[in-house]
């Protein structure tokens, strides 16, 4: 809100430099966001007098302090800073007969939504331009001067915070004002020329026949003040903030009036504001003010009396402020406070609707005392801090994956729903009802599509060697439609995994299924997960014959594979990307908390190689299992050295060169022993997997 500082001086003496006052106001909670200087030229070009300069503060009013949305409100906040009280504008009118009550009747149908309605009538007003001083003040406050009557309603709103509206009295059917909810099918054309459909629970001001204003938001064009207007009705009413906010939102309207009502207007000020407006209209446009306002105020608001315990205030603030000083602070904010038996009795003025209990008064004491003077301590008791189990595990995973060469990334959870379709999970995705745009309409169901997008984007940026991983939430609906979310871990890679590898064979460097599997195996190895198996699978994201689930014990914890060509195409990833995704919690559950020490072998090992030729449809896993099972417990490790297919063996067979480590934990093995075991292994391989040997 714009606060013209010259105008402010009507209500309070600014006895210090403006910079200093702005700073103090900011430190009291009413932030002066910027200071604007309007020149004579600025005033002139906006239609003002052009005879003065003015410094204007732009203040940020927090949503709880509707009372700050006026000159008087800001002046009040300056009270404790400059050490004086404000001067309210004097309201002194000469009224005429007949009384207003004979010229207009006012009825409130719904006192819940309209606590008070004050109507003042002025007849035979001359509608014309406002004088320069009035125009200047409105311009300084950021409003456009219109005519003397409308200007006065705006002026009083800015001065006292009470939104006003002026009707052309002669255009009100039946000389009647009814505050009621809109009826089915009613419409109104507001003064901005827009015809608006009203809904049943919107509060309107109606005359005998039709709505003439949307209560607290905007008046209607039909009863608007025009050059022909002679008699006017000034509305100074108080509307329910929730109702105004709902209606304004539904109609997509924000006005100076609705903005104030949403933030609460003091019902007590309605009558003063009405008479203040009448006085100013009389001064600017003559006419006759009808005696007495029509004031419908079914349940007048009373000031709230609260008690405040000084000990409690000090206990909250961590201070030792004297009760008398506390009372002084509150009094400086017009909260009349007395001390009885060391307890403060505080009478909260009706304009401070934000103060409802003791703690609110404690904040006021803190504000006036100054937050900057509060001491700095630490809580007396000490507690043991700790990371969440997930957080600690996450860090472990990050370390391992980074050491595997993967760059950590962080992608959006709000994504295009098409990614879920790609993953074959459109049915379980969580959809946002009010997305920013169509391509941000869903929560991600999986991390891999996001990572593929990262690969594609980086390829477009010219980075072709890529390995990335992310640990983050994925979101889903379960069988009952319940929304769930869980942590997931995924990695994706494409291109060379070496930063620099001149003259090395490209084929060995590029990411492929086995390099990707190697990362997963390194991860499991790093965690101490021993019994992982990889089983052929199908997945909409993956190459139909290069995809595997990762099984630990009897739990499927994730999957890995080469990305299906159509998926890579859709997401614009070049090359042959590979990826894996693992359920974070399942992985955590199969990871041993503590790794147990196994004795380091003391006896020497004997190493043997064996080239096993088997049919193409025999899995390596089967061969390996056969070797281990037939090894009499003496084969410590089997590893694959080479996979060969080619001229030297039949076309439908492959040769697997195995490296075997023989070792006993109890003795030194002899060559003869190992040869005997190896013979058994060969026999078992012939028997179980139809092997021949090279």
């Amino acid at each position, binding site marked *: 809100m714009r606060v013209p500082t010259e105008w402010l001086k009507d209500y309070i003496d600014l006895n210090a430099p403006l910079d200093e006052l702005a700073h103090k106001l900011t430190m009291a909670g009413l932030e002066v966001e910027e200071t604007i200087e309007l020149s004579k030229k600025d005033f002139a070009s906006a239609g003002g007098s052009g005879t003065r300069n003015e410094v204007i503060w732009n203040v940020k009013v927090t949503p709880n302090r509707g009372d700050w949305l006026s000159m008087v409100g800001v002046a009040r906040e300056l009270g404790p800073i400059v050490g004086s009280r404000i001067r309210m504008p004097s309201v002194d009118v000469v009224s005429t007969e007949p009384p207003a009550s004979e010229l207009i009747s006012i009825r409130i149908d719904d006192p819940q939504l309209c606590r008070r309605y004050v109507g003042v009538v002025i007849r035979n007003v001359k509608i014309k331009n406002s004088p320069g001083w009035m125009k200047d003040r409105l311009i300084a406050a950021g409003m456009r001067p219109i005519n003397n009557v409308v200007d006065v309603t705006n002026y009083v709103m800015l001065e006292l915070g009470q939104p006003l509206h002026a009707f052309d009295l002669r255009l009100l059917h039946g000389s009647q004002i009814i505050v009621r909810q809109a009826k089915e099918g009613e419409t109104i054309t507001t003064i901005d020329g827009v015809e608006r459909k009203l809904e049943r629970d919107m509060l309107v001001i109606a005359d005998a026949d039709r709505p003439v204003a949307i209560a607290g938001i905007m008046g209607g064009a039909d009863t608007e003040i025009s050059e022909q207007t002679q008699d006017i009705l000034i509305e100074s009413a108080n509307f329910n903030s929730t109702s105004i906010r*709902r209606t304004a939102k539904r109609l997509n309207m924000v006005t100076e009036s609705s903005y104030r009502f949403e933030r609460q207007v003091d019902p007590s000020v309605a009558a003063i504001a009405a008479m203040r407006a009448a006085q100013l209209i009389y001064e600017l446009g003559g006419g006759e003010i009808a005696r007495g306002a029509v004031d419908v105020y079914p349940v007048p608001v009373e000031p709230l009396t609260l008690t405040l315990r000084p000990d409690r205030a000090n206990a909250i*603030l961590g201070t030792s402020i004297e009760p008398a000083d506390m009372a002084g602070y509150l009094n400086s904010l017009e909260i009349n406070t007395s001390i009885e038996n060391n307890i403060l009795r505080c009478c909260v003025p009706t304009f401070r609707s934000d103060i409802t209990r003791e703690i609110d008064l404690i904040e006021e004491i803190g504000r006036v005392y100054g937050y900057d003077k509060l001491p700095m301590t630490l809580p007396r008791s000490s507690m043991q801090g700790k990371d969440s189990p997930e957080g600690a595990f996450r860090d472990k995973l990050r370390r391992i994956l980074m050491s595997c060469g993967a760059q950590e990334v962080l992608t959006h959870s709000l994504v295009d729903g098409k990614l879920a379709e790609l993953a074959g999970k459109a049915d379980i995705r969580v959809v946002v009802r009010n997305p920013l745009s169509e391509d941000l309409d869903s929560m991600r169901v999986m991390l891999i599509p996001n990572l593929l997008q990262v690969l594609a984007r980086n390829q477009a940026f010219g980075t072709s060697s890529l390995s990335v991983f992310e640990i983050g939430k994925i979101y889903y609906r379960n069988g009952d439609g319940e929304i769930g*979310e869980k942590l997931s871990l995924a990695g994706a890679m494409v291109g060379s995994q070496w930063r620099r590898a*001149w003259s090395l064979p490209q084929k060995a460097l590029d990411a492929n299924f086995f390099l990707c599997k190697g990362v997963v195996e390194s991860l499991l190895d790093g965690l101490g997960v021993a019994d992982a198996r990889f089983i052929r699978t199908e997945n909409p994201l993956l190459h139909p014959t290069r995809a595997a689930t990762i099984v630990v014990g009897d739990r499927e914890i994730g999957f890995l594979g080469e990305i299906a060509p159509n998926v890579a195409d859709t997401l614009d990833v070049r090359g042959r990307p590979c990826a894996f995704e693992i359920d974070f919690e399942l992985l955590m559950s199969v990871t041993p908390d503590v790794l147990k020490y196994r004795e380091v072998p003391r006896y020497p090992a004997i190493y043997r190689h064996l080239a096993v030729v088997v049919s193409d449809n025999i899995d390596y896993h089967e061969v390996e299992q056969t070797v281990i099972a037939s090894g009499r417990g003496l084969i410590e490790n089997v590893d694959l050295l080479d996979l060969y297919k080619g001229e030297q063996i039949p076309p439908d067979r492959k040769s697997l060169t195995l490296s075997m480590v023989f070792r006993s934990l109890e003795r030194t093995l002899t060559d003869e022993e190992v040869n005997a075991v190896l013979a058994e292994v060969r026999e078992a391989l012939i028997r179980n997997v139809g092997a021949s040997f090279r």
Partner: protein
Amino acid sequence: MGELEILNEIRSMALRRILEATSSAELDAVEIEYLGRKGELTQRLRQVGSLPPEMRKEFGQTVNRIKEELVKAITGRRETLAAAEVSMRLKKEAVDVTLPGRFYQIGRPHILVETLNRIKQIFIGLGYEIVEMPEVESYKYNFAALNYPEEHPALDEQMSFYITDERLLRTHTTAYQHRVMEKRKPPMRVCTLGKCYRVDAVDATHGHTFHQVDCFTVDRGITMADLKGTLQQFATEMFGKQVEVRFRPDFFPFVEPGAEVAVTCTICEGKGCGVCKGSGWLELAGAGMIHPNVLETAGIDSEEYTGFAFGFGVERMPMLIHGINDLRLFMENDLRFLRQL
């Protein structure tokens, strides 16, 4: 020529040949020629029986002396030659040491995750327990339990993405407060970190998704001075000793008294610059004493217990520390950016 003279002749010749040998192979040949089974000296020794008895002793001794001498000479020469050969081989193996090294691409942490971890460690050090909380929240936890009245203008700052009438993406990590309070009993000192979402157009300083940290404590005798001290401690750990913390009144429905927390601008050290808009201060966090309504809603006696809470955005910190000027960089994952930090 006497036999001994012949021996001397052989000795001289052999020594010369040893010295003249230019490779191990040549030297081996010389060795065999003189000392081998059919070597000249070996054969001479076999002749000893055909000599007159009075000569045998001297002859034998001389041959053996010469043999020892030759063995020693050969060994010496062999060492010399071997050293020369190694040095020759190594010379041939010369590489251009200025050729680039071959190395595996290393993985780096994401700067935001790293910042979150740093923040986490500071709060763990201050006695906070980190808890994991959902991002898809209910209106109840995100707003109602935090003392937001229905249809309050304070909601304007927290425009939400809704999934259903009741379910929304959390607009602040503060949403976890009531979840924790309804499950635990004081004393509590907890912290959560993570993604938050607000309906906000995306530009260099705004995004629909951002990361927040939220901490709160509830105990007997917690004061606003404790809050101030805690945040000063945090700021010092995070930004360094020279940083001061400034409190000024602000409004958040879930705290009372409420405060906006600022720290000395880390760019200009408080002198005033473009980043802090000349004020010398940077807004850091929203904070305050937990509103008694919030405690009471969770069934905590607000007379016996008090608490403080604060929350802040994370992106701003690495932006300040590393001079990053566009928020979008964090989630765009351009590796040319990520690999720098």
